[in-house]
């Protein structure tokens, strides 16, 4: 309790409060503008955090993450277009309520549910991080290798509709990690004989390129316009009694978000759709879902915000990002010299407790920024992409440069932006590539170290129960899509 009080005192320092407030404003903006998202918002702010101390930098990032999950519902409710993909399920009932003249009520329900989900996700993080970190302290090279393989397997299968393209994407990420000097021998690999590539391609240029520049190039090539009217956004806010009546959908949505969010690769979009579907399933009036049912907003919004805290569990305890946004957050931790993993709780306990408290303060700021700014946000999100997207490119290139003061990083960001754009066009998900780059060192280095310790015997991976379980889970995860399609084919043929 003392540690949490100290964490709260740290989060309430003026510089940290300013970072949390700034993060909330940026997060709602990034979530609300179609084409941006929590991931793009985090990628854009990454270079700015470089100049900040670790605590305000990370508090700003978690605040962006939290607020962006709510921000997506603004456009979902106002115009029926999700600002970001986790708000997809909110459009089903949110926009229907707007057309019925109940936009204010829908905004209020979304905000209250997001706040509740955010708190539940944070409590889950507080409860799970310590035990998981303690369990992970026993990890050696075989366990870390198995963990890395498990992370790669689950992500390649869960991201995107085409598992093969997910696997190719992860392999491309692994290839990007190989570029540079080999960690164990110092041998240059895939450097094309140049010194520029000796330092590697770097995580941050890849994140900026994939999530900011690729999206902006998509906007430039597509002449996309946001068609946003402000009609019908007025309307009475919900009464407290109205919100209290929704406690069951909010609790169910939060629980679903908390569980799915903690699974690497599952993410807020899946959680919110599952929560909406589950709510319809248990409802006595399922036919009202999709026509403006308040529970159809409350459950998915609670779920996508509960995912934020939950996604931090594997990230902070094991160094495995549970979503693309968490991968960018890992980039932020790396920039600040903070190494996530089992030792984080013991070596940087004050930072962890400040993050816990920061999540709660971020939820409060999200509530304030969201409630006070609804009319403003609806106007801001109508900012034309033909103005917004060039600015995203400009800030991304400068951002990639400032992290190491190296112009090559800006070139790498442009390269990754173009590659990311082409991959998205061809249906390749980007998140597995980022995870390949992140998990590649964990997989390769620990594989070679484990074999060096066992004099080349592969049984070392089967002797540890943890490693055995993780490898088994990875095999199941790799085989699951093929088994599912076989079963579907079998049923279809019967």
């Amino acid at each position, binding site marked *: 309790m003392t540690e949490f009080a100290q964490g709260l005192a740290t989060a309430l320092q003026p510089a940290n409060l300013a970072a949390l407030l700034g993060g909330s404003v940026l997060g709602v903006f990034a979530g609300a503008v179609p084409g941006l998202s929590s991931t793009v918002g985090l990628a854009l702010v990454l270079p700015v955090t470089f100049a900040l101390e670790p605590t305000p930098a990370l508090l700003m990032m978690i605040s962006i993450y939290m607020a962006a999950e709510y921000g997506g519902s603004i456009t979902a409710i106002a115009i029926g277009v999700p600002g970001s993909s986790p708000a997809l399920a909110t459009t089903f009932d949110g926009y229907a309520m707007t057309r019925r003249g109940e936009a204010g009520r829908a905004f209020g329900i979304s905000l209250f549910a997001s706040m509740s989900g955010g708190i539940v996700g944070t409590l889950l993080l507080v409860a799970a991080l310590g035990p998981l970190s303690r369990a992970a302290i026993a990890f050696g090279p075989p366990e870390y290798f198995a963990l890395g393989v498990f992370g790669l397997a689950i992500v390649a299968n869960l991201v995107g509709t085409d598992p*093969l393209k997910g696997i190719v994407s992860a392999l491309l990420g692994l290839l990007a990690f190989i570029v540079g000097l080999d960690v164990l*021998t110092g041998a240059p690999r895939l450097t094309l004989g140049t010194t520029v590539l000796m330092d590697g391609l770097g995580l941050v240029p890849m994140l900026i390129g994939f999530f900011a520049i690729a999206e902006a190039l998509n906007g430039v090539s597509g002449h996309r316009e946001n068609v946003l009217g402000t009609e019908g956004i007025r309307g009475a806010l919900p009464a407290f009694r109205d919100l209290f009546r929704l406690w069951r959908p909010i609790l169910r949505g939060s629980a679903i978000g908390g569980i799915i969010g903690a699974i690497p690769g599952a993410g807020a979009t899946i959680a919110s759709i599952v929560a909406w579907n589950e709510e319809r399933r248990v409802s006595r009036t399922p036919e009202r879902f999709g026509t403006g049912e308040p529970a159809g907003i409350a459950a998915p919004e609670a779920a996508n915000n509960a995912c934020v805290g939950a996604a931090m569990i594997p990230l902070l305890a094991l160094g495995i990002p549970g979503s693309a946004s968490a991968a960018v957050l890992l980039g932020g931790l790396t920039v600040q010299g903070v190494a996530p993993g089992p030792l984080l709780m013991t070596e940087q306990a004050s930072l962890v407790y400040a993050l816990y408290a920061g999540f709660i303060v971020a939820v409060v700021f999200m509530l304030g920024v969201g409630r006070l700014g609804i009319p403003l946000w609806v106007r801001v999100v109508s900012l034309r992409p033909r103005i917004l997207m060039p600015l995203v490119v400009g800030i991304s290139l400068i951002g990639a440069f400032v992290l190491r003061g190296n112009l090559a990083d800006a070139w790498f960001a442009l390269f990754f932006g173009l590659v990311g754009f082409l991959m998205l*066009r061809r*249906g390749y998900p980007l998140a597995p590539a980022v995870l390949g780059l992140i998990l590649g060192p964990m997989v390769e280095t620990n594989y*070679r170290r484990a074999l060096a310790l066992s004099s080349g015997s592969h049984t070392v991976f089967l002797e540890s129960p943890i490693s055995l379980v993780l490898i088994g889970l990875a095999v199941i995860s790799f085989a699951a899509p093929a088994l599912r399609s076989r079963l579907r084919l079998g049923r279809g043929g019967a």
Partner: protein
Amino acid sequence: MSEGSRRPAAFVEAGLVALLGAGVLLDARAYPAPLIEGVPGPAFFPGLVAFLLIGCSAVLALRPSREPASARMEGGGVLRLGGAVLWVAGFLLMLPLIGHLAALPPLILGLMWLSGERSPWILIAVSLAFGGFVHLLFVVTLGVPLP
């Protein structure tokens, strides 16, 4: 989308993945041998990834698949994309020579024009304001030196 127009795109895609894998295999031949016998050296992991890429490329080429809807891009879109990439490359080449204050406004102006903005006032005002904003944020506020 007809079979005839779909397959060449899928073959090109698979060919690129295979080419990448083959390139990695070729490069890995020059890496030093393992330091300890029986323990993989620096060539092992790139070789494994390359083999997997080549395997995936074979499946990509042979499996029946539909062209993703997102893959279709009209001619104007390709030109705008090419123009934008070249414009950004030009900016990166000019940045160390003329500095960020002179290089950023033309970058933004050109990209906005390529994106479809035609109002001269918006083009000039937004691009100049952006250059000033970046200078204020990074150089003045955060103390980060820019070229």
